[in-house]
């Protein structure tokens, strides 16, 4: 019994971080219809921001989080201006943007690798290796804080989407781009803003990731399929779905890791991705098969 509770807690801890990683990806897909394969590499860029902040000046990664968010949001604006604005009307847009984001992922990986080398790194504030003990059950502090901060950010994001004017426009554009444009929404501006927010969320997720996982520039390939499984399972574009899928799959993965073997825990995500694509391509919360 205790082991089951323990494993569930560890799964929830991971789920919190994955939820933030996936929600930015989901937002960008919802508004822009871009399957952003560069998202994990941008998360790594955010992680490096927090890492160097801690290494050089001893700034806590949680304090570096806003810095990483703003920096990555700026990079997002740049990427949007360079790569996506001109292509919005291309006929093979969705496939082309997948390949384009794949290329961007390689550019970022190569740049980070050339600058910082491909060694494993982890930011190590005191709480990263500490834990709370409740009887025999322990809760790792790093994951707890990361999960709480990530829930806070997702809550802010949800409130922003629900109540702000720009949030209305973003939701309208997600539902129907043409109709939103017809009603006076500046869809290009909305696209730019949501892309910046989505990449900014990657930066925030990176700052949290930097003390939860060890990372190196080439690691983002391992995350692409994991994040895709969360976003596809939740229903591309549905942030609620992404969060639910993150927690669900992370808990299952934690159980697989505990009872089958730790090497196989990531297999959960890949198999889930396959099964969802095959049997319910619109995901848990998607309304229509977007990807078909």
């Amino acid at each position: 019994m205790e082991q089951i509770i323990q494993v569930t807690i560890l799964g929830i801890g991971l789920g919190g971080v994955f939820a933030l990683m996936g929600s930015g990806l989901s937002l960008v897909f919802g508004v822009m219809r871009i399957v952003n394969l560069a998202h994990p590499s941008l998360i790594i860029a955010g992680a490096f921001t927090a890492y160097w902040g801690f290494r050089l000046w001893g700034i806590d990664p949680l304090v570096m989080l806003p810095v990483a968010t703003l920096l990555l949001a700026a990079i997002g604006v740049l990427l949007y201006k360079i790569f996506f604005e001109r292509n919005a009307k291309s006929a093979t847009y969705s496939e082309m943007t997948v390949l384009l984001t794949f290329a961007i992922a390689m550019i970022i990986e190569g740049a980070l690798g050339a600058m910082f080398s491909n060694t494993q790194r982890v930011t190590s504030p005191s709480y990263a290796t500490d834990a709370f003990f409740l009887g025999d059950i322990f809760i790792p502090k790093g994951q707890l804080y990361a999960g709480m901060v990530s829930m806070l950010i997702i809550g802010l994001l949800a409130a922003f989407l629900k109540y702000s004017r720009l949030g209305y426009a973003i939701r309208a554009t997600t539902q129907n781009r043409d109709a939103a444009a017809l009603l006076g929404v500046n869809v290009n501006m909305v696209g730019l803003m949501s892309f910046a927010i989505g990449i900014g969320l990657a930066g925030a997720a990176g700052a949290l990731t930097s003390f939860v996982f060890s990372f190196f520039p080439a690691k983002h390939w391992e995350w692409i399929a994991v994040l895709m499984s969360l976003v596809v399972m939740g229903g591309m574009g549905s942030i609620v779905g992404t969060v639910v899928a993150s927690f669900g799959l992370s808990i299952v993965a934690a159980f697989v890791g505990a009872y089958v073997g730790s090497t196989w825990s990531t297999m959960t995500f890949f198999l889930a991705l396959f099964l969802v694509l095959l049997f319910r391509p619109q995901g848990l919360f998607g309304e229509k098969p977007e990807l078909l």
Partner: protein
Amino acid sequence: MKSQMIDSTPGDVLSARAAYNERLARLADKTRAVWFPLAILVILLVLPLLQFVGNYNYMLHLVLLTASYVAMAAGWNILGGFAGYISLGHNVFFAIGGYFAGMILARFGISAIIMAPVAGLVAAAFGYAIGLITLRVRGPAFIISSIAMVMIARLLFDNWHFVGGANGVTLPAPNLSSQWAKLPYYYAMVAIAAVTVWSSYRIKHSKFGLGLRAISKDEIKAESAGIDTRFYKVTAFAISAFFIGMTGAVWGEYLTYIRPSIFLVILIAANMVLMCILGGKGTVAGPVIGAVLLVAFNEFFVAMMGASELNILGTGVIMAVMLMFFPLGIVGTLALKGKLPRILNWD
């Protein structure tokens, strides 16, 4: 005009159409230069004679590498170019071919060059089975599922102790002098590349290829026109897996070891895509030109910078630039402008 149409019999119409088609075919023949690829092939076949007068192992290695890239890119092109299904996971079949032939070599001592067609068939069987599953979705969903395919394969091969896990297996090296050690692999790879390019030409000009092109343009219309799209797609997947599997078989023995980190890295899949985009997706000459350019570019970069990280960066930059400005690739863009030189018109 009207009376003329009424007067003409069906026979007249048919013969007029036959004449018209023949004229089109002759026109196409006139702009095509079959001698050029054949000449390249002949040159490549006699090239190893240089070994009698000196040591050209590095050059032979480059040709071999290019040939393997040509075979992989042309194989990928059958699914990605003709049918329009972009896969970022075709290195799985590279690994399957390499591991199958490599394990046969390690256990029974049968050379991978002999086993290459069998390895290709094994890869094709896997391709058929995987295609039945993943080809149910298209567009971005297919691309994502292909990446997941690589991740699953990597995890399985890394943990499969029979094939050595993450450390892989060392294969026996051929007992030839270093002067001639590359030759068997050289000829095998050139032959595989030639067969692949020739097959992709034949496929493009067959009814099967026409069906694939119809699928890439509009799958629903193709289906309603009576094309068995599922069978066509899965067969194309299996054929492309076959050629890539054969390449993997020879490549594994050439390197004398097989290891997941050689075959199942995403850069190999990216290179296949990049070569086709560079040269021109869906053309016969495109993958060949793409492969030559990629090898030249890689050698240049390694010689100039020597860093694999910058190599990844450069690959990404070239891919992005091509996608943004020349999505049709070199051959496609030149053909669109009517400026394609005759020697590059292999379609």
